[in-house]
């Protein structure tokens, strides 16, 4: 047994090395993008612009954290974008229509998100629907509900300037609070993922669901929890996007789910489950927004932006795969 142990030990070490390398690679791609745009564009390399990039990352970053949990379990959540919208509408209605105080709107939005997530989880864990289909259905349902509740009209936070101020106004060191909210959520999410039972079971589910079940873990309950967490992040996303727009817009949100999934996967989360990190996801989200803003600043036409974005998604994930293959 001696030799085998040493072998697997060295393999474990290389795995650990591999993992820091992964962050390094995704981070490397981000640094290259930042350096490239900074080099060729003076307006890009301004503090204001870096702040803009952070602000533009906030919503997608938060949604992508939820996506990360779900993808680590081996699932997928297509409903995060429209659930975000639904939550921003809930927030808007609570704050403006009911005359309730602002601080009640925030938990209402989060609860709404968690509820949609829980429905996703129940459909998947109890009714055994494939996650793709359950969340595709809920994508439509959330979107419809957002429009029904808002009567297909934006909800404005008139008479509630404190809401905008809380998240976007009053920047600290020039950085609006949405950015701090995103990083705060990231730290929390990362702790949950690496240091709590929920995190442990998230990885266990993605690694081998049946083995987890046979170990006496109530996998249905934990799966429902994970999708609820994703819904919770969608709720937070709804709050942030409402703050950014100083209103709740019932028809934004389509396509956000793909950006969130792309951010997680670019950041090293594996669509086959069992692997992923919040730090990687944040880097992935930063890559997406840096690319978007960079191309926009240097004035690349829209149609070329699409092509380049497509190629960068493919390239970034390919790099990650090359790295893993090189290691394996």
């Amino acid at each position, binding site marked *: 047994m001696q030799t085998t*142990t040493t072998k*697997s*030990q060295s393999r474990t070490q290389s795995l650990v090395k591999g993992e820091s390398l992964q962050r390094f690679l995704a981070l490397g791609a981000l640094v290259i993008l930042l350096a490239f745009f900074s080099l060729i564009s003076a307006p890009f390399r301004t503090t204001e612009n870096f702040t803009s990039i952070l602000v533009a990352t906030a919503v997608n970053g938060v949604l992508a954290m939820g996506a990360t949990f779900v993808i680590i379990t081996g699932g997928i959540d297509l409903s995060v974008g429209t659930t975000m919208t639904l939550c921003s509408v809930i927030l808007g209605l609570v704050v403006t229509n009911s005359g309730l105080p602002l601080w009640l709107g925030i938990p209402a939005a989060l609860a709404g998100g968690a509820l949609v997530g829980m429905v996703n989880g129940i459909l998947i864990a109890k009714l055994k629907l494939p996650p793709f289909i359950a969340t595709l259905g809920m994508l439509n349902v959330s979107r419809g509900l957002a429009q029904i509740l808002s009567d297909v009209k934006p909800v404005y936070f008139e008479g509630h300037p404190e809401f905008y101020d809380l998240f976007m106004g009053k920047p600290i060191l020039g950085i609006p609070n949405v950015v701090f909210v995103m990083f705060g959520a990231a730290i929390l999410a990362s702790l949950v993922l690496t240091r709590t039972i929920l995190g*442990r079971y998230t990885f266990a589910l993605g*690694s081998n669901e049946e083995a987890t079940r046979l170990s*006496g873990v109530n996998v249905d309950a934990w799966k429902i929890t994970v999708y609820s967490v994703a819904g919770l992040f969608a709720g937070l996303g709804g709050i942030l996007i409402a703050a950014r727009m100083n209103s709740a817009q019932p028809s934004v949100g389509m396509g956000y789910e793909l950006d969130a999934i792309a951010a997680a996967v670019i950041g090293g989360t594996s669509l086959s489950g*069992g692997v992923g990190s919040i730090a990687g996801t944040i880097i992935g989200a930063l890559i997406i927004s840096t690319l978007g803003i960079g191309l926009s600043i240097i004035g690349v036409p829209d149609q070329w932006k699409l092509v380049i974005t497509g190629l960068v998604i493919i390239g970034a994930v390919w790099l990650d795969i090359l790295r893993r293959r090189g290691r394996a």
Partner: protein
Amino acid sequence: MAELLVEMTGISKSFPGVHALDDCRFELRPGEVHALVGENGAGKSTLMKVLAGIYRRDAGTIRFKGREVEIASPRAAQDLGISIIHQELNLMGHLTVAQNIFIGREPRGAAPFLLDEKTLNAKARELFETLHLKLDPRARVSSLAVAQQQMVEIAKALSFSSVVLIMDEPTAALTDTEIDELFRIIRQLRERGTGIVHISHRLQELKQISDRVTVMRDGGYIDTVQTAEASIQSIISKMVGRTIFEATPELPEHPNSEVVLEVRNLNHGRVIRDVSFQLHRGEILGMSGLIGAGRTEVARAVFGADPHDSGEILIHGKPVAIRTPANAVAHGIGYLSEDRRRYGLALIMDVEANVVLASLRKFAGRLGQIRFDRTKAAAQEQVKGLAIKTPSLAQRVRNLSGGTQQKVVVAKWLAADTEILIFDEPTRGIDVGAKSEIYRLLNDLAQQGRSIIMISSELPEILRMSHRILVMCEGRITGELSAAEATQEKIMTFATQREAVVAA
């Protein structure tokens, strides 16, 4: 007599279309090792899964320490003190050894939802010390060899300090030394009063370790006997309901001297080192060695399933380039993997589709259309020739028993007219009846002039079947023995010939 730990009576269980268990009975006393035997598909695993809370029984009662109980979930079984080692590995590859062992029972930190990794690893280390296992608690399970993973499963089951321990074929992937270690642990547990259920197809083991044997057949209970009072032959006849003549099959006296396959100086990283050998027409070449010696790696490299760094492969004396399995198949090589469900079969497809999978192009017209009359005929021929027990060609392979599945894999390569067959652990997890059929099949194939490499971890099997035996250790071929000179002792000597020993 001590009070019964477990008493199961009148247990029935159906799956849609199958009566897996019919009015079954089983009992377990404290401090006994109770062996459960039967052919593939007899219902052993199902019966034990009912006890472990994985399946709900349709009828019958379970008494635990005299009290009637309802075991509704794996957790409920754990709470009663019943733990199980499953027939298939059930591990989370992305998690570490310690994380796997304590999944669902993680030591908690400052708050009840926080993990305490330090305590977790310490507890695992402690467990390994009492079990004399050399495992790193922080190693990722996916990085371990199969035998080590099996040890993790065993450690996990033992960590519950249960009163009932069910082991469903724990020894299938272990070598003799590892089995000895396991038996030592079992005896230790028996002394503590733990009741142990031991399921195995290696009937010789029963004599070594068990107190009583219960035999099952076709989902029904047959008999329970004291091990000491029963002969293996009598147990076998109870299992199969007929007598099996286990005479040594006849090998063709002298395999042809024509070299069909030659491997020269094959290397791949540290797992294959300078491997060279020849395979003759009509020969069964046994490959022996401890688990992890690199036999599978050699087979996969020769077959093109994995890349190799250097080395030459010659077929009929001509060097050939084998980079993919497609190349190998084109050169008439077939490989039967040690894990047929993962690597050998398209389980949700039917028998016909699996049989012709490797040779489909032969049966296709110019437009790529499949000539179903021909594929059916070919599959039918194999089903007949190999006596594959299937109700029809349209049966999904998933629904066949383990031994029958193995025959389907063999059929696949025969249908492809394969000249060189590499069998990797062909009888793993297969009952005695099916086993002797596979042996006969191997002999027939050799007699027809096909050349066979047979990798096996069971020494009696290797000794009985091979014309010639190669022994591997740590990626090198450390010895070659003819059938006449080979003994278990000689093989073990070569199999443990580590590099350090050679150098000394």
